[in-house]
Every structure is written in C-alpha cells, then in structure tokens.
C-alpha cells in the first residue's frame, strides 16, 4: 500500500524558532512536493524536488527552504517561523510517468505563536 508519512500531525512553535517538517515516502518516487493549505486558497506549492539533492521553487517559497539528501525523504525548513506561516502543510510524492497522480501525507498542522 502506498505510504507517505509526515513527522508530526500537530506542532506549536514560537515566532523566530527554526522548524523542521519531515516527509518520508516508500514508493521509490522521484518527485516530492511540499504544499501549504489555507482555507479558500486550496493548496499552494512551496517547493518540489525531482531527484536527490535537486530542488525547485514553487509558487510561494519565501521564508522556506528544503532538503533532499535521500530519495525517500524530503524536509521542509522554516528558518525563522512567523505567525503568517501558521497553516496546514502537506507533503506529496509522485513518479515521473506522464499523468501519474500525487500521493499525499496526512499533513502537519503548524501553529506559530
């Protein structure tokens, strides 16, 4: 069975803290993605990676960075968390084949105080 896991379901952090969100997939997918989900805005792509050590900015990369040292693991880093980064963060993975869907993790609800 397809599986994408995220390190935490809920996180509470203070403004200025460094935050790490981890995502692991067991499907040997090349592509991995980080989205944030906010009410009325759908999902917006923060960063994605199409191979180990490769990354590309999505639509809203400001304030975030990513790391992909191993194929199965993709980390999202908030260097200095701010209150406007309070959101639901969803990780997804997908293969290279045309039309292959993305598989999503359970999400991390982050609250920055």
């Amino acid at each position: 069975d397809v599986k994408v896991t995220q390190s935490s379901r809920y996180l509470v952090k203070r403004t200025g803290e460094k935050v790490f969100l981890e995502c692991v997939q067991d499907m040997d997918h090349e592509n991995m993605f980080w989205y944030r989900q906010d009410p009325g805005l759908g999902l917006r792509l923060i960063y994605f990676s199409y191979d180990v050590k490769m990354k590309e900015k999505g639509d809203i990369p400001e304030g975030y960075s990513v790391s992909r040292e191993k194929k199965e693991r993709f980390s999202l880093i908030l260097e200095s968390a701010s209150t406007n980064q309070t959101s639901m963060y969803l990780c997804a993975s997908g293969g290279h084949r045309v039309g292959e869907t993305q598989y999503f993790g359970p999400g991390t609800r982050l609250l920055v105080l």
Partner: protein
Amino acid sequence: ELKVEQNPLFLSMQEGKNYTIYCNYSTTSDRLYWYRQDPGKSLESLFVLLSNGAVKQEGRLMASLDTKARLSTLHITAAVHDLSATYFCAVDKGNKLVFGAGTILRVKS
C-alpha cells in the same frame, strides 16, 4: 500564469439529488486530477483525466475533461451523506500541479 477556478466553493445538497462541480483553468493542459479531502484528513486521488473527452466514473461520481473549453466537471449522481467532503481539481503544469480552491460539499439527509 496558470489559474484554476472551481465553482461553487460551497455546495449544500439533499440526499438523492444530482449536481455538478466545475473546474475552469486558464492555460492549455491535457492533464487534470480530482482529489477528495475528508475533514482532518489528507487528500485522496479520485480521478486522473489525461486527454480531451476523457470520462471516468467511480460509484456516484463522474469526471470529464474538455481541453478545448479548459473545463472539467465532477458530476454527483443521487448524492449520499458519505460524499460529504472537500473536492479539489488540479491541473498539470509540467510535473507540478496547480490546485483550485476546493469545493466543500455537504449532503443533508
């Protein structure tokens, strides 16, 4: 820039009724995806539509794609309470997806 618009954003319907959710997008694409999200849960893939005229059906849901009109529809037939969820369409933009805002569907008994 690719924009994806869904409507309606909120839909309250009675059990047994039919309705359609629309997904319009602004630039050419041949690939469109529908996902379902239950409250507090992650997204689950429903349909992958890969060409003009593609139609997929699963139970009471049917999705279609008209690439010329840049329109996909998700048709609900004889709604049941279990279909209550948020439905997202997403358009392929070169191995990345651009999502609509989502349609919250509530089916009332």
